[in-house]
């Protein structure tokens, strides 16, 4: 297939480690259009790349200029980036504009990357949460409202415009080389705060595996909502120990104390609005995705943890 005949796929958040993995897996079969709101991403020569805000008028020019067949929406302002109002504008209103443009320009397929955070961390959570469970994260804090709203928005478009073939993916903690989310930052630190008396079960997926999951979801196109997780679990305190972190005990009671300590420490890796996720488990059931797409992650938990451990030993992290 010549370069001109290849279908065009727009990938948002192209500067991130996850997007780079996805681009690498798609670039031979597709013409990839790169978009990032932080910087103009340099990838391979000849690849179209734009630095643009999704809710700015200039974003539509990309759709005018290219014949976009599919969008893989990975570009989100991270939980520790900016204020929750800015995150809301970017993640929610920006996504709405993106989906409107997809509808206007007859895009055939949209993959939206969400997060397991939307389920909320609660002492009453059952384990192996399936996709039909309520999204309770916004009960916890205003800081997670944008994550839930982004999901709700994608859901509305999923049912309203079935021709968009929207697939929403809710992965567990993504970790590994180049990942800059709060969990990956935490595992990269030498000190990891832990709440005294609490060590919830957690799930981790390697960045290369979630990239493969996105690619398989894109190629096979079964619209819907899917959790993506390894069928393997570890307690939080054991995970940080495995990554070579020294545990920093933080009092867990009275209830407000860990929140105040987190605010005082001001750590991006351990923000106050995620405290409950270090206290109560949010274990998701990835079996629907695995079955639908015949997917099995290749990297083990130890592969993920050994990356952080080895980098620390070499003094790189």
């Amino acid at each position, binding site marked *: 297939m010549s370069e001109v005949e290849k279908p065009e796929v727009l990938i948002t958040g192209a500067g991130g480690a996850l997007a780079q993995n996805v681009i690498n897996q798609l670039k031979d079969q597709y013409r990839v259009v790169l978009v990032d709101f932080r910087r103009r991403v340099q990838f391979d020569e000849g690849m179209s790349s734009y630095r643009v805000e999704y809710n700015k008028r200039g974003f539509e020019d990309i759709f005018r200029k290219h014949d976009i067949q599919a969008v893989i929406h990975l570009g989100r302002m991270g939980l520790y980036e900016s204020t929750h109002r800015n995150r809301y504008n970017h993640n929610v209103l920006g996504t709405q504009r993106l989906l409107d443009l997809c509808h206007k320009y007859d895009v055939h397929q949209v993959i939206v990357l969400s997060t397991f955070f939307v389920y909320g961390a609660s002492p009453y959570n059952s384990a192996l949460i399936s996709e039909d469970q309520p999204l309770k994260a916004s009960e916890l804090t205003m800081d997670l409202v944008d994550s839930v709203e982004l999901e709700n928005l994608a859901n509305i478009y999923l049912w309203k415009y079935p021709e968009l073939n929207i697939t929403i993916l809710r992965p567990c903690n993504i970790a590994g080389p180049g990942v800059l989310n709060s969990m990956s930052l935490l595992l990269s630190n030498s000190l990891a705060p832990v709440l*005294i008396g609490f060590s919830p079960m957690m799930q981790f997926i390697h960045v290369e595996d979630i990239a493969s999951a996105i690619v398989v979801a894109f190629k096979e196109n079964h619209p819907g909502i899917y959790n993506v997780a390894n*069928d393997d*679990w570890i307690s939080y305190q054991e995970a940080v120990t495995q990554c070579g972190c020294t545990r920093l005990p933080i009092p867990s009671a009275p209830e407000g104390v860990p929140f105040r300590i987190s605010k005082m420490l001001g750590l991006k890796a351990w923000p106050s609005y995620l405290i409950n996720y270090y206290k109560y488990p949010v274990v998701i059931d990835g079996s629907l995705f695995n079955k639908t797409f015949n997917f099995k992650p290749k990297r083990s938990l130890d592969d993920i943890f050994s990356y952080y451990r080895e980098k620390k030993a070499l003094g790189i992290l």
Partner: protein
Amino acid sequence: MKIREFLKGRLVSKETDAIVDKIPKPVGSFGYDAWGFNTDAYKIGISLFRPIYEKYFRVEVTGLENIPEDGRLLLIANHSGQLPIDGALIGYALATSPHAPRAVRAMIERFFPQAPFIGNILNEVGAVLGDPVNCAKMLEREETIVVFPEGIRGAGKPWSQRYKLQRFGLGFMHLAVQTNTPIIPVGIVGCEETMPTLFHLNGLAKLLGIPYLPVTSPVPLPAKVHLHFGKPMVFEGPIETEDDAAINVERVKDEINTLIQKGLETRNGWFS
């Protein structure tokens, strides 16, 4: 983690290690399952509970041969003794069964996950939050779950009500039918005598936010405990109404009552 390794080295014998390793309990690469069960913590729990089971309550068991080697299973038992000792005794009996060792999962109150240390420790030895979704997911993964359908009505009943089965909740029957799970009825004799209770301090219990506060022995008495496991009962659905479920539940209740009566007739006394 270091504490667990230390305790395992000091407390877990080779024999216990081998017994637990025989249990067909799938766990992940670090020895955990999705609910927080941990193989090493479970071995420590079994080792710590051994003298309580063997020396203190001198437990005698019949019917272990009725427990299938694998597959989903609901153990439905009478509840008594103010503290959840009966659940732990059933768990130990099945873990060390010479026929088909199984790791039993017990349901715990919603208060526990919020309690520092206790919630995690209970999860590690197999207990999980009492929630129908949890139960169904575990049965889908071929786990063995012990359920006390009397709930606190059974555990907290006074001496005057001993060995009188209280009202059974119907939830377990819906689960059994939905998930096509066999039920093993269990009759427990002896736990009623571990903490004979004259009456409850209801006002103070309400003030403290606990389900009941019994006036009883400060520590469980060393009554001899007998566990009688009945034959598997299979119920086919669908259950159309709550009355249908209640009829099936009565059959299980009758079976448990029969096992209890048999146990009461064959025992020599409270302590022997």
